[in-house]
C-alpha cells in the first residue's frame, strides 16, 4: 500500500512548545516510514492552521493525517471536518494528544520531547492501517418524553408543545407542580409561587399535544436517540374523571397518614388532593399493598376497613361494611379461626389486632340498636340454581347467587339449617338465635330453604336437572366420623364426635355417664368434651396421640377447654375398647414422636410394653371426618362423580366444577374437614363460577379472592411508606375480651365470651397500623355523588415510543433528624424549610399564619443556614438557594409578625440578579445577621421561669464571642440532595452521576443540559441545586436542544462499532451477556450472535470477550492497536 501520511504538530501557543521541542519532533517524524510531509503550526485549530492542513492534503495527495495537539475531546471533530472538506475520509485522520498527556504533566524538556515523538509515532503507525468508514443516519421520532413535572418539566413541556410536537409528561405524584407548588413566595422578587406557577400548570392540562401522565413511573427504557421505547406504569388513581372535586370523600375517610407535602407537620386522608390548584384536579386514593388481614381472608372481608371505622366510632358503618361481603357476619365474628389476625402486621410489633372481636362488637352493637342492615337491591333473573347443603359453603354460594338475582333453592337433610354451624358448633360458642337471624336475613333475599330432604333418598341430581335447575352446587360437607379402626369401637357407649354433637343439637337424648373420654385433638374433640361437661359429666379427659404443639385445634380453644376443667392427656392412643361390667375398658398405649410425616407433623410411634387400662362410662371418638359420598352413589354404590384418593370430590381448582357439567362443589366435601371461612371462600368462588357458567362465559379469569401466601416481614418493614418501621413503632397491649368465669360457664350453654364495650373496641381499633394507607372501608364510595370512585381500578402499563427524553426529576430535602444537635423531629417549633414554606402558604395548615405549636405567634425566630450543606459529614456542596430563601423567610416573618429574626450564616451568597439588593433590603428591615454556624439548639428550662422556648448556641465569629440566643421558633435551611432513587433512575436511562450524587452533565460549562447518553437530557435540580430562574433557563435550553435535534429529522451514528465475522462466530453467546448496551442478540436461525448497529457504542467489551476473535471493532482493529503499540515502543 502506498501510504502518504502528513504529520501536523501544534505548538498550542506555549502550552506544548514550552515543554516539547516541536521542531525536533517535526524533524523526527519527517524521517519515519510512510510519512510524506511533516510540519508544525502555532495553533493548528486556528483557521490558518486548518487551511494549511487542507492545502497539504490536496497538494501532497495525503491519504492519512495525524495532528499532534490537544485531547480528541477538544478538537478531534474540528480536524475530522477539515479533512473531510479537503476530500479525505474523516476516519483516515488520527489525533495524537501531546498536551494533556505530555507537555502539561512534564517538566523535563528533553524527556517530554522523546515522549511526544513516541506518541506521534504511535498515531502515524496506526493511521496507516485505518480504513475509510461511512457515517450512518437514523431517523428521529419527533415525540419527547419529560420525566418529572416540576417547574422545569412544565416549562420544557410547554416550549416543546409550542412547536406542535407531542410531549409525554410523566409525573410520579398525583399532580404536577413539584416543589414550587409547596412554596409561598419566591425570592428575590417575592412573587407568589402559586400565582406564577398555576397558569403554566393549567396550560399543561389544556394542551392537546401534551399527554399528561400522573401517578406514573418509568419502568424500562430501550432503544437509542431518536428511537426510544419507554415502558411507563401508571398507578391506579381509583377515582375517575367524573370527580367534581367536591371533597366529600375526604370528610368520610377514616384514615390519616403524614402528608409529605406539608413536611412532618400535616396529615392527609387516604383519599386526597395535595393542594386546591392541583392538575389534574381530581382526587386520588393512596393505596399500596392490600392490607394482610384482607389478603389472608378467603372471602376478602375488608377487615382493615371496619377496624378503621370502629376507630372513628362509626359503628353502624362498620356493621354495614361487614355485612356487604359477608353473608354470615355474626358467625364469623364468633367462630372464625381468623387468618386475618395470624397475618396482621401489628403482630410484628407486639400482638395482632383483635379483628374478630371487633367484628363481633360492630355487629352486636348494630343488633342491640335494631339497626336494619338493608339488603342490596336485586334484579331478578329466571335461572334456577339448586344448592345442596346449608353449611357455610352452601349459604355463601346461595347468598351471592341470590344477590345476583338467581332463583336459589337450598336443600338440607336435617331439620336445622346451617350445617355444622348448627349441628356441630356448640351454642356456648355460637348462640343459636344468631344463626337463626343470619338465615332469616338470607331468606329475605329470596332464597328458598327446604329442610328434611336428603340427596340420594328424597331426590337425585338428575331429578333436579329435570325440574329446571340450570346449575347445582354440592356442599354436603364432611359429616361422617372417621373410625380409629380398633377392636371394640362399635361397643355401646362409644360415640363418634360429630354424631354426638349432632344428636345433642337436634335434641336427641344421648345417655352419658360420669366419666367421659374423648379421643382426638381437633376442634370437634374440644367441642365434644366441653359439651359433655355441660351435659353433666364429672370428669372429661381428652386423649391425644401427639403433643400440644401438634394439636390442630385453635390454641385459644385449648386454653378455654382446660380452664373449664377438661384434662388433656398427650402422647397416648387407644388400641382396644371392651365392655367391662357397667363401664367401658379402654386399653391405651403411650406414644413418642418420630420423624415428620406427610402432613409435616411428627409421626407418633407407640412405646411397646406401655399398655395400660383405663375405665370410662363413655368414649367419644373425634379424630376426623369425611364426606358422606354414599349419597352420591347409585344403587350399586358407584359414585356419580369423580373422587380424589382421600374420598373428597374432585373438582377443578379454579372453577370448582366437577366432572359433570353444571354440577359444582365446594366446602368440606372438597376440602375435607376444614374451617368455616375456607368453606365460605369456596362457596363464593362457586357462585362466581356458576354465574359465568349460566352467562355462557368461559370458566377462566376469576375475580373472587383466593388468599396468596404472605411473605414474612422483617422488623425493618413499614406497614406503609409514611409509617416508621416495625421496630420503631410504640408498643401497645391488645385489649383482651372478658369471658364468663369457667367455673360457672362449664355447666350451661350461655356464650363464653362477653364482648367488647364501645371504649374497649375503640381502644383496640386505634392499634391498627393502617397497612397500605387505604383500608377499603368504602365510605368514600357511599358519599360520592358522581360515582367517581372505583376501588377495582387496575394499574396500567404502556409502551411509549419517543425520540428524546428529558429528565427533570428534582431533589429531595435533607432529613435534618440525623443532625441531632438541631433537635429537628424531637423539639417542637424546630421546622424544616419546607414546613415553614407550608406554614407561610395560604393553602398550608395554618392558612399562612406563623404560629408556634401552642398557637401563639413567635417572639423571635432563628433561621439556620447550611444544614447538611457545606458539611463534610453530610453534603460537601453548597445548596445555593438557602441563603436567599432564608432572607425571604426573614422578610416574611417581619412582614407577618412582630418577631425578631436571627440569621445564622457562614457566608452570605447573594450571587444572582437582584439578590444583593434583596439582602440589603432585608438588612434594612432590621433582621439580625450573625456570622457563625449554630452549634446546637436546646430547650430552655433550667428554671420554670425560662421554660417554653428554645436556645440557639453559637459563636458570633465577627465579635469572637459565644452567644446563647433565646427564640421561640427555629427554621432549618436543609440541604437539597439527590433523590433517594437516583441510582435506580440513573441505571434506567444509562446516565452517570457526579461525585455529589446528582446527574452528570456532558460538560459543566459548555453542555450543561445533555448527558453522555445521546438523546437523554437533564434540567433543574436533578443536575445540581439551583433556583427557579436557573431551572427554567436550563429547561428552556434543553427544550431548544431537543427541538433542534427533532427538526434535523435524523442523527448521525458514528461508524466506530463492533462487527461480527459470521464465519468465525461459534454462537457461544458470551458477548450477549457482556454488552453493557444490550446491543448483541442471538440469531436462532443462523445460530450466531448479531449486533444492532444502532445500539452499539463501540466500547469493545465484546471484542475482548469473544474467544474465537470473531468480533472486531471498526476503527479499533487488532492491527491498528498493535501498530499503535509498536509505534510507542519504536
Amino acid at each position, binding site marked *: 500500500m502506498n501510504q502518504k501520511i502528513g504529520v501536523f504538530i501544534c505548538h498550542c501557543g506555549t502550552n506544548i512548545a514550552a515543554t516539547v521541542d516541536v521542531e525536533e519532533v517535526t524533524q523526527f517524524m519527517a524521517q519515519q516510514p510512510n510519512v510524506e510531509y511533516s510540519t508544525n503550526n502555532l495553533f493548528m485549530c486556528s483557521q490558518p492552521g486548518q487551511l494549511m492542513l487542507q492545502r497539504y492534503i490536496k497538494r501532497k495527495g495525503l491519504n492519512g493525517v495525524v495532528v499532534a495537539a490537544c485531547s480528541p475531546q477538544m478538537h478531534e471533530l474540528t480536524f475530522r471536518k477539515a479533512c473531510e472538506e479537503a476530500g479525505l475520509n474523516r476516519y483516515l485522520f488520527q489525533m495524537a494528544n501531546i498536551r494533556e498527556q505530555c507537555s502539561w504533566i512534564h517538566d523535563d524538556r528533553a524527556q517530554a520531547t522523546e515522549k511526544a515523538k513516541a506518541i506521534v509515532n504511535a498515531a502515524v503507525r496506526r493511521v496507516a492501517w485505518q480504513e475509510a468508514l461511512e457515517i450512518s443516519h437514523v431517523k428521529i421520532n419527533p415525540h419527547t418524553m419529560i420525566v418529572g413535572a416540576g417547574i422545569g418539566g412544565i416549562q420544557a413541556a410547554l416550549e416543546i408543545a409550542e412547536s406542535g410536537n407531542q410531549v409525554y409528561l410523566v409525573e410520579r405524584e398525583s399532580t404536577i407542580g413539584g416543589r414550587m407548588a409547596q412554596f409561598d413566595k419566591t425570592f428575590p422578587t417575592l412573587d407568589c409561587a402559586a400565582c406564577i406557577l398555576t397558569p403554566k400548570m393549567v396550560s399543561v392540562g389544556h394542551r392537546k399535544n401534551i399527554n399528561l401522565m400522573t401517578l406514573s413511573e418509568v419502568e424500562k427504557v430501550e432503544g437509542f436517540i431518536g428511537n426510544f421505547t419507554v415502558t411507563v406504569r401508571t398507578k391506579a388513581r381509583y377515582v375517575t374523571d367524573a370527580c367534581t372535586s367536591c371533597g366529600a370523600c375526604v370528610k368520610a375517610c377514616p384514615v390519616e397518614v403524614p402528608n409529605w407535602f406539608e413536611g412532618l407537620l400535616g396529615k392527609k386522608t387516604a383519599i386526597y388532593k395535595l393542594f386546591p390548584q392541583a392538575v389534574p384536579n381530581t382526587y386520588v386514593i393512596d393505596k399500596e399493598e392490600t392490607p394482610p388481614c384482607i389478603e389472608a381472608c378467603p372471602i376478602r372481608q375488608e377487615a382493615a376497613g371496619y377496624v378503621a371505622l370502629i376507630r372513628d366510632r362509626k359503628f353502624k358503618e362498620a356493621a354495614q361494611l361487614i355485612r356487604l361481603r359477608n353473608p354470615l357476619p355474626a358467625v364469623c365474628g364468633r367462630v372464625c379461626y381468623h387468618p386475618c389476625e395470624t397475618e396482621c402486621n401489628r403482630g410484628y410489633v407486639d400482638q395482632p389486632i383483635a379483628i374478630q372481636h371487633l367484628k363481633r362488637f360492630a355487629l352486636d352493637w348494630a343488633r342491640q340498636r335494631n339497626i336494619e342492615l338493608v339488603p342490596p337491591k336485586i334484579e331478578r333473573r329466571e335461572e334456577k340454581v339448586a344448592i345442596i347443603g346449608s353449611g357455610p359453603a352452601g349459604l355463601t354460594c346461595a347468598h351471592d347467587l341470590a344477590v345476583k338475582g338467581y332463583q336459589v333453592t337450598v336443600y338440607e337433610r336435617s331439620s336445622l339449617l346451617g350445617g355444622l354451624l348448627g349441628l356441630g358448633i356448640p351454642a356456648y360458642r355460637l348462640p343459636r338465635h344468631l344463626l337463626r337471624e343470619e338465615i332469616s336475613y338470607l331468606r329475605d333475599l329470596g332464597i328458598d330453604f327446604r329442610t328434611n330432604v336428603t340427596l340420594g333418598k328424597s331426590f337425585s341430581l338428575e331429578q333436579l336437572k329435570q325440574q329446571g335447575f340450570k346449575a347445582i352446587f354440592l356442599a354436603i360437607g364432611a359429616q361422617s366420623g372417621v373410625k380409629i379402626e380398633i377392636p371394640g369401637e362399635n361397643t355401646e357407649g362409644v360415640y363418634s364426635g360429630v354424631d354426638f354433637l349432632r344428636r345433642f343439637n337436634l335434641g336427641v337424648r344421648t345417655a352419658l355417664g360420669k366419666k367421659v373420654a374423648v379421643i382426638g385433638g381437633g376442634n370437634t374433640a374440644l367441642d365434644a368434651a366441653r359439651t359433655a361437661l355441660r351435659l353433666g359429666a364429672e370428669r372429661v379427659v381428652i386423649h391425644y396421640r401427639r403433643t400440644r404443639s401438634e394439636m390442630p385445634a385453635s390454641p385459644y380453644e385449648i386454653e378455654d377447654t382446660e380452664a373449664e376443667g377438661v384434662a388433656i392427656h398427650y402422647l397416648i392412643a387407644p388400641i382396644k375398647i371392651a365392655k367391662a361390667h357397667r363401664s367401658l375398658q379402654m386399653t391405651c398405649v403411650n406414644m413418642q414422636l418420630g420423624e415428620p410425616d406427610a402432613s409435616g407433623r411428627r409421626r407418633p410411634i407407640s412405646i411397646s410394653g406401655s399398655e395400660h387400662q383405663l375405665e370410662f362410662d363413655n368414649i367419644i371418638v373425634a379424630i376426623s371426618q369425611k364426606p358422606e359420598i354414599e349419597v352420591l352413589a347409585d344403587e350399586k354404590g358407584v359414585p356419580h362423580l369423580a373422587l380424589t384418593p382421600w374420598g373428597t370430590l374432585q373438582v377443578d381448582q379454579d372453577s370448582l366444577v366437577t366432572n359433570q357439567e353444571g354440577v359444582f362443589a365446594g366446602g368440606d366435601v372438597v376440602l375435607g374437614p376444614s374451617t368455616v371461612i375456607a368453606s365460605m371462600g369456596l362457596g363464593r368462588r362457586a357462585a362466581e363460577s356458576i354465574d359465568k357458567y349460566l352467562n355462557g362465559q368461559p370458566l377462566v379469569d376469576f375475580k373472587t379472592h383466593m388468599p396468596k401466601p404472605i411473605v414474612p416481614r422483617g422488623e425493618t418493614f413499614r406497614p406503609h411508606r409514611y409509617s416508621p418501621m416495625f421496630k420503631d413503632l410504640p408498643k401497645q397491649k391488645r385489649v383482651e375480651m372478658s369471658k364468663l368465669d369457667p367455673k360457672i360457664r362449664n355447666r350451661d350453654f350461655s356464650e363464653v365470651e362477653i364482648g367488647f364495650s364501645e371504649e374497649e373496641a375503640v381502644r383496640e381499633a386505634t392499634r391498627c397500623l393502617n397497612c397500605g394507607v387505604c383500608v377499603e372501608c368504602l365510605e368514600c364510595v357511599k358519599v360520592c355523588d358522581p360515582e367517581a370512585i372505583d376501588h377495582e381500578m387496575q394499574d396500567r402499563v404502556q409502551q411509549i415510543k419517543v425520540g428524546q427524553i428529558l429528565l427533570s426529576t428534582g431533589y429531595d430535602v435533607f432529613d435534618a433528624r440525623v443532625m441531632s*444537635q438541631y433537635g429537628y423531629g424531637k423539639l417542637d417549633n424546630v421546622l424544616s424549610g419546607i414546613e415553614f414554606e407550608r406554614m407561610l402558604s395560604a393553602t398550608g395548615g395554618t392558612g399562612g399564619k406563623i404560629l408556634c405549636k401552642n398557637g401563639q405567634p413567635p417572639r423571635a425566630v432563628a433561621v439556620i443556614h*447550611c444544614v447538611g450543606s*457545606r*458539611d*463534610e*459529614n453530610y453534603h460537601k456542596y453548597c445548596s445555593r438557594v438557602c441563603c436567599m430563601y432564608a432572607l425571604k423567610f426573614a422578610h416574611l416573618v417581619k412582614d407577618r409578625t412582630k418577631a425578631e429574626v436571627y440569621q445564622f450564616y*457562614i*457566608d452570605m451568597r447573594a450571587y444572582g440578579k437582584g439578590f444583593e439588593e434583596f439582602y440589603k433590603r432585608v438588612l434594612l428591615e432590621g433582621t439580625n445577621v450573625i*456570622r*457563625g*454556624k*449554630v*452549634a*446546637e439548639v436546646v430547650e430552655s428550662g433550667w428554671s420554670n421561669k425560662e421554660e417554653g422556648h428554645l436556645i440557639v*448556641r*453559637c*459563636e*458570633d*465569629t465577627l465579635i*469572637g464571642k*459565644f452567644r446563647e440566643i433565646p427564640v421561640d421558633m427555629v427554621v432549618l435551611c436543609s440541604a437539597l440532595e439527590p433523590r433517594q432513587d437516583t441510582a435506580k433512575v440513573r441505571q434506567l436511562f444509562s446516565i452517570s452521576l457526579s461525585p455529589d450524587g446528582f446527574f452528570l452533565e456532558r460538560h459543566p460549562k459548555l453542555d450543561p443540559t445533555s448527558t453522555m447518553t445521546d438523546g437523554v437530557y437533564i434540567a433543574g435540580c436533578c443536575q445540581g441545586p439551583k433556583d427557579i430562574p436557573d431551572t427554567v433557563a436550563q429547561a428552556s435550553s434543553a427544550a431548544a436542544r431537543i427541538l433542534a435535534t427533532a427538526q434535523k429529522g435524523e442523527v448521525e451514528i458514528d461508524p466506530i462499532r463492533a462487527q461480527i465475522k459470521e464465519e468465525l462466530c461459534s454462537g457461544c453467546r458470551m458477548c450477549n451477556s457482556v454488552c453493557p448496551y444490550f446491543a448483541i442478540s442471538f440469531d436462532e436461525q443462523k445460530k450466531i450472535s448479531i449486533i444492532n448497529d444502532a445500539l452499539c457504542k463501540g466500547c469493545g467489551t465484546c471484542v475482548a470477550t469473544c474467544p474465537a476473535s470473531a468480533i472486531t471493532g471498526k476503527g479499533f482493529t487488532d492491527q491498528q492497536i498493535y501498530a499503535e503499540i509498536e509505534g510507542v515502543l519504536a
Partner: protein
Amino acid sequence: MALEMNQPGVWSKSERELRGAFLSQLEVIPGGDKIKACIQCGTCTGSCPVSYAMDISPRGVMALFRAGDIEAILRSRTIWVCASCYVCTTRCPAGIKITDILYALKRIAIEKGIFPSRFPVYHLSEQFVKMVNKYGRNYELGLIRRFNFRTGLKKFWQMAPLAWKLFIHGRLSFRPSRIKGLDQIHKIIASAQREPVPVSRETSEFLGTVGYAATTEVEEKVAAGGNQA
C-alpha cells in the same frame, strides 16, 4: 512579631521554626491537612463546653495558624484548657480533627518550651502522663503534690481541707494503687512510641505543595537568600 513578613511569601524566622514543627506533627494525624479547609464557621467554639475558659476560641486557633502566628496559639491557654470531649471534631463541617490538632500543638509547646504566662496547667498534663506511666492509672494525691511542688506549695496546704473531705468519703487514697498487668501498659506505650505512625497519602501530598510547605522549600530559599544577604 511573628505576623510581620520581611519578604513577600516568607514567614518570619521564629514562625518558620514553629510552623515546621507543627506541619510535621500534622503529618501523623490522619486528615490533619484539612486544617486548611477551615471555613471559620465557629461550630467548634459554639459546641465547646469549656470555651468560656479559653482566651482564644478554637476557631481563633485555626485563624491564627492561617495568619502565621503559631506562637500566639502556644502562648494562649486554649490548648491546655481543652477537655478532649471531641464534640468540635464530630461536628466540624470541614472535617478538621480539632482536638487532635490541639494535642499536636501541646506537643510542640512542650518541645519548644513556649507556655502561657501564669497558667501552669501544662505541668499537670506532664505529671499526669508520668503518673499513668508509673502506676498504670492516676494517683490523685501524688499528682496534685507534684503539681504543687512545681507551681507553689501554698496551694497544696490551701487544698488540704478539701482533700480531707474527699478522704472521709473514700474518694481520695493516700497511697497509690497500681493496676494489674502494669508491664503490659508499659509495653503498649513503648510500642506506640517505637512504631512510626502511618502517614496518609493525602497528608504527605499536601505537605509537598507550595504555600503550606514553609519548612522545606521556602526555608531553603530563605536560607540561600540569607547567605547572599
